[in-house]
């Protein structure tokens, strides 16, 4: 079975985010007000061939723990959907 996976990686709360801070500082000068709490993370998308949804989810969680995130500074949210979204 093919599953479509989205892994959103964000810096853990409390870890300073220089990219977010830079964007937040730059926006008012461009005429955009009222933007706060900017955090810039990663959105990784891929397809995965797995036995079933449970196996797919488990594999992705393990990938995140071991490889896709650095748990010292990052958290991940995983979304697994059946089928290859194109």
């Amino acid at each position, binding site marked *: 079975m093919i599953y479509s996976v989205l892994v959103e990686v964000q*810096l853990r709360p409390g*870890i*300073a985010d*220089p*990219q977010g801070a*830079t964007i937040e500082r730059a926006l008012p000068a461009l005429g955009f007000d009222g933007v706060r709490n900017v955090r810039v993370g990663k959105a990784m998308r891929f397809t995965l061939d797995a036995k079933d949804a449970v196996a797919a989810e488990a594999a992705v969680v393990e990938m995140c723990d071991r*490889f*896709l995130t*650095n748990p*010292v*500074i990052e958290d991940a949210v995983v979304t697994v959907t059946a089928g290859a979204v194109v």
Partner: protein
Amino acid sequence: MSPRVGVVVFPGSNCENDVIEAVDSLGGRGCVVWHGDSALGDVDAIVLPGGFAHGDYLRPGAIARFSPVMAAVSEFARAGGPVIGICNGFQVLTEAGLLPGALQKNAGLKFLCRSVIVRVETTAGALTNQASLGQHLEIPINHFEGNYTCDAETLAELRSEDRIVFTYVDNPNGSTGAIAGVCNPARNVVGLMPHPERACHPLLGGTDGAILLRSLLVAAGANIATCG
């Protein structure tokens, strides 16, 4: 016998020959260790050099830490062998869990290549045994992701165990505690962002880095003595 320093090359590493040149100029013998090898060969110290192992894709060091050679590096470190991570090498060591913390993007969101002044915070260890406590050294940095980050607990532990090796006098990248380099509890594994090999020749503007690499050769020599 002059100590042999193995310099690990991952695809994308680029400072390996610079480190070898500097080590050789100080009387050591540098040699290349390929990341795909699972044995280190006959070496007395290991350097993970600067560069962009695997393009720094995903995160610096994230892919490199899975290279076959890293098991051997861990083993070598566990046995007390001196292991130094410079810049990208420091990033690899944190990803591999051989050193605490993480290196994230510089606070200014810019790559920085320039000289900085670091303060020697401890002289017990593989990289500063020839330096004096509190000594100021001028050494170039060359990184985008050198912003040392760790939680309060880790910071307290590093402080209480005297494991902060260098701090920046003028913090260039937002590092927690202005940390430029740390070591493991056994003090034989050291990671630092500045590049000592770039400050070992008077024509290139400074020789402060030689103090650190000489310390490494002393540690490597001691390693020969203990390992026989």
